[in-house]
């Protein structure tokens, strides 16, 4: 693989992480919700999309799942967003009224349940074999692999930037101001007549819907869906991207994902032999740990700290 193509591939996966980081930054950075269930909404989106768009499984050799509706991609995409949003609504109902830790634990537990569900409920998800050979959008319009890779990169980043500008708009709006006031002090927010629960819920559901969309992008990118793709490691990587870039700063999330995922993927260069790979994997985790300690010690508010809106 040429360096150029490698960089294209890295920037694509950076985009996917950047979008998850933006979502986490809306719920955590702006609203103060601690949601360790990020990957759960991505998984729900990805599998919903797969079930809606895949061909009837009885036509696929070895498939044990029962449903595949073979509907157009855009229907799958919308369904993915709605399902993830609905999931977030349901988990938010009991937990968003409580203090932060309950949601953090509740959402984390839910994402674990989802991972185990997609592994075990093969009638719906085809279990550990999952979905494969999933088409990416407009693939047939391109003859060259590299031309499509560039197109796909642009497509992903169009979604990333779309989310970025949406969130920036929210940040500057009266609604965003109230989200931050809730983050800063719940009791005082109540004293100014704000229904705290409603604000948390809308922000949480919006983030989940967009995470559901990330699930679709992930399915396009990977062309397969297997349970191993949806582990809590993704959630914690996203959390680190946000802390690194600057909690509360959306530009920081784009930067954090670029630095974090860029560094992670570029070190794969050295994974030439199997011995090196194992060492490198361990080193990488240690490096991430050291990086986190350094940020917390020297740059607590991240590379790009949150900026106040001046008036």
């Amino acid at each position, binding site marked *: 693989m040429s360096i150029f193509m490698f960089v294209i591939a890295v920037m694509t996966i950076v985009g996917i992480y950047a979008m998850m980081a933006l979502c986490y930054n809306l719920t955590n950075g702006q609203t103060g919700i601690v949601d360790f269930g990020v990957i759960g909404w991505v998984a729900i989106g990805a599998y919903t999309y797969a079930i809606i768009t895949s061909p009837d499984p009885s036509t696929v050799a070895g498939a044990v799942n029962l449903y595949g509706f073979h509907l157009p991609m855009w229907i799958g995409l919308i369904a993915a967003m709605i399902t993830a949003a609905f999931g977030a609504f349901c988990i938010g109902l009991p937990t968003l009224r409580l203090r932060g830790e309950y949601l953090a634990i509740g959402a984390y537990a839910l994402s674990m349940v989802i991972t185990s569900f997609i592994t075990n409920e093969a009638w719906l998800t085809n279990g550990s074999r999952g979905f494969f050979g999933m088409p990416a959008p407009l693939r047939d319009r391109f003859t060259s692999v590299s031309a499509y890779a560039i197109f796909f990169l642009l497509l992903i980043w169009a979604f990333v930037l779309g989310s970025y500008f949406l969130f920036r*708009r929210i940040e500057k709006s009266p609604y965003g101001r109230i989200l931050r006031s809730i983050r800063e002090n719940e009791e005082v927010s109540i004293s100014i007549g704000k229904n705290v629960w409603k604000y948390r819920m809308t922000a949480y559901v919006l983030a989940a819907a967009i995470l559901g969309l990330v699930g679709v992008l992930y399915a396009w990118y990977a062309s397969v869906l297997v349970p191993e793709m949806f582990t809590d490691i993704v959630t914690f990587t996203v959390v680190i991207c946000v802390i690194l870039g600057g909690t509360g700063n959306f530009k920081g999330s784009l930067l954090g994902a670029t630095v974090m995922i860029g560094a992670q993927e570029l070190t794969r260069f050295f994974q030439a032999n199997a011995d090196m790979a194992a060492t490198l994997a361990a080193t990488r985790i240690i490096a991430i740990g050291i990086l986190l300690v350094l940020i917390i010690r020297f740059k607590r508010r991240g590379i790009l700290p949150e900026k106040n809106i001046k*008036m």
Partner: protein
Amino acid sequence: MALLEIKNVSKHFGRLKAVSGANMEIIKGKTTGLIGPNGAGKTTLFNVVAGFLPATEGEVRYNGENITNLPAYRLARKGIVRTFQTPHGFPELTLMENLMAAPKNQEGETLWKSVLMNPAVKRQEKENKERALHYLEEIGMIDRRNEKVGNLNAGEARMVELVRQLMLDPDLLLLDEPAAGVNPAHQETLIEMLNNLKKKGITLLVIDHNLGFITTLSDKIYVMHQGQVVLEGLPKEVISNQKVKEIYLGGKK
């Protein structure tokens, strides 16, 4: 006419009867003082009236409507606005953002309208901004409008808290020790502002330990002691009352 009626309200924390059987009538457009030694239950009574704590028993009526145990945010929207004994605000947000968060029924308060940012939202933002600037001018902090509230000292934070709550256009304002920690220059501003509020017909219920401050401000004073309302009367009567003197001298730790 009584704007607020507190009828036999109690609030117990386990075995501690922080408020027991309190009765009060807060007259519309008047300023009512609430005094009493530390731990008398004044703040607790505020918390119950403003919906921040459920009443153990009793009833609170506002404009004749039973509002006991309604959620606090709804009471704030109905016009019952309170300040806190320890002002916090939103520390990481600027003075302007603190004030601009407060107005009720903001056009851009909902997610969808905020995303659309239609002209109505922008117009209202502009109005609210002007009001906020006006208030900051009044308390002499307009130059600090883009500073974080977390940087203010306690007295300054208290003044900002007051004007933030005024952004809600309250009908009944519950002030918990509004003058505590406020420097003398600001105290004058504060008294002037409270007098203006009175002129505008806003009903005030004020807790304070400074008897001079509270007697000049109030039309009527209630005295609480050990959870009970022990006395009510005109300011003159109350401060010269023998029982009040005893409570204050004997009640101080």
